[in-house]
């Protein structure tokens, strides 16, 4: 059995009478790219939120690197190196790109005394490199709130990389991004995975993107895990096709 970094076992979560997740189990492998798909309202973001500690789960277990994290609050999970980006992009709009990057330095690796130091030349260089990496270098001194939605998404992605996570959960990274830029983004996600060794777990609506990106894909429908497999297997799975076309 290969190295599992996130292990979700039998997780259920309901909001009032709505069962968002029912007995969901899945694994994310270390060093790989795992995808999560499903029709609208199938419980993908709920599962993400459960993993990162956004809300308590009703039952089941979630382990990160072997440690049970289902009872931990968001910041403690983030400090373990499990990071997420938001579907509704969240950046610091009043600050410029470089400031956003510097705020994203991995504070979890700093003692209080380290935090009381000024940013080093290396920090600035790394910020510039990563902004270059996502193609925002030219716009790095612009107020981030003035960037387009797609650019803000790229900035949020760069901020996440700056944080040096072990594992990164991306909620619809290509939504709102210009179709011509999407290929570039796929390439960058793959490079982030290979060059920085960051495990990626991606929610994605765009089938072309997820099929090109992920090595292993899970499909949720009506809050239940419907199928799991390689992109080929998922594409040819009748249950998945039915779920998307509404036969389920």
């Amino acid at each position: 059995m290969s190295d599992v970094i996130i292990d979700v076992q039998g997780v259920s979560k309901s909001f009032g009478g709505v069962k968002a997740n029912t007995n969901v189990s899945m694994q994310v492998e270390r060093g790989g790219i795992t995808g999560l798909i499903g029709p609208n309202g199938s419980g993908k973001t709920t599962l993400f939120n459960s993993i990162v500690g956004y809300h308590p789960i009703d039952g089941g277990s979630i382990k990160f690197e072997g440690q049970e994290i289902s009872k931990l609050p968001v910041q403690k999970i983030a400090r373990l190196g499990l990071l997420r980006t938001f579907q509704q992009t969240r950046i610091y709009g009043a600050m410029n790109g470089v400031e956003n990057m510097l705020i994203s330095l991995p504070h979890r690796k700093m003692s209080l005394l380290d935090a009381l130091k000024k940013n080093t030349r290396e920090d600035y260089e790394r910020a510039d490199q990563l902004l270059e990496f996502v193609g925002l270098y030219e716009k790095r001194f612009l107020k981030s709130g003035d960037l387009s939605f797609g650019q803000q998404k790229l900035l949020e992605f760069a901020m996440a990389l700056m944080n040096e996570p072990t594992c990164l959960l991306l909620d619809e990274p290509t939504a709102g991004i210009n179709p011509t830029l999407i290929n570039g983004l796929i390439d960058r996600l793959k490079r982030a995975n290979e060059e920085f060794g960051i495990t990626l777990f991606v929610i994605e609506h765009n089938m072309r993107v997820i099929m090109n990106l992920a090595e292993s894909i899970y499909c949720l429908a009506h809050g239940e895990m419907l199928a799991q497999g390689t992109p080929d297997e998922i594409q040819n799975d009748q249950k998945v096709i039915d779920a998307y076309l509404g036969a389920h």
Partner: protein
Amino acid sequence: MGNNKIILYAAILAITVIAPFVFPAFGTQLATLWLMIIVALTWDMTGGQMGYNSLGNIFFYGTGMYVAAAVTIGMVYDVGEYTSAHGGGITSFTDQQYFTGMFVGILAAGVFCSVCAVVIGYLTFGLRGPYFAIGTLGVAIAAGELVSNWDWIGGGQGIALPVYPGDLDEGKVFFYFLFALTGVAVFLFCRWLYQTRFGAAINAIRDDEEKADAMGIHTLRYKLVTWSMAAFFVGIAGGISAFQLIHFEPLETAYQTINLGIFMVVCVLLGGKGTLWGPVIGASLFHVFKEVTWNYFLGWQWVALGALIVVTVVYFKDGVMGYLLHTKPEWFGVKIDQKASEETS
């Protein structure tokens, strides 16, 4: 630092040093101005930079007063006996006892208030926005009531400290410089702090605490540290005030929530929240405004003050610095790349 800035800092420092000698009649007023600058700068550390609008910072001022007094007295006499003898004679301190007591007492006030901030912060930092403001205000009011019923430290009558052993005018200058020194220290401390990663992190907490959490920033730890830094300086300012005022009582002087407790917030709003110079400018403007109305519009001074607060809050939310930042961004080195911003939009 550019040449202009060095000249500006040098000029301000020079004015600070010569002011009490050029305007000897305003010695106490100038000392109070520095007190306002201290409490405004420290209020802005949490209120402006971190987004936590405390109405309870006056708690640290009052507590600082009492701690400084109790420690100073306690080093020579029994505090309970001293306060119950109230005016009954045992108030003699040698010069050495006075100055040693003052030094230790003021320092103890700062440290004690720092610890208080951590404890109170631990209980109240779960509150957000107006709830935090009201929660901390409650702490300050409750503390005032508790202290005024605590006979050991003088109860509602307050405490009388020994008088400055020397010439009265010399004493005024002495306290002016204590405040000025603390004020300059607070300013330089803030100036340094806001340039560190820590400074950026508390700005992140202000702008989006949830995101800061999700990025793994130790939000609670940073909030506690920031507030305890602020409390340290407010405590010291309170300690100095205790010696300057000689006699103080809990509700009107020490835990004066409706006076200094509100003034510090108004100073910051007037000068510009979340900026280094805003609190300094705001405190100066506010203090001048207050003294002018108190002298020339007596009877209407509270009305004028209320009007100033309303106008500031409604029409001048960003304060002087905010206004300048919008209208003259180039003064602050903000470069706006016209071409790039057009491409974006």
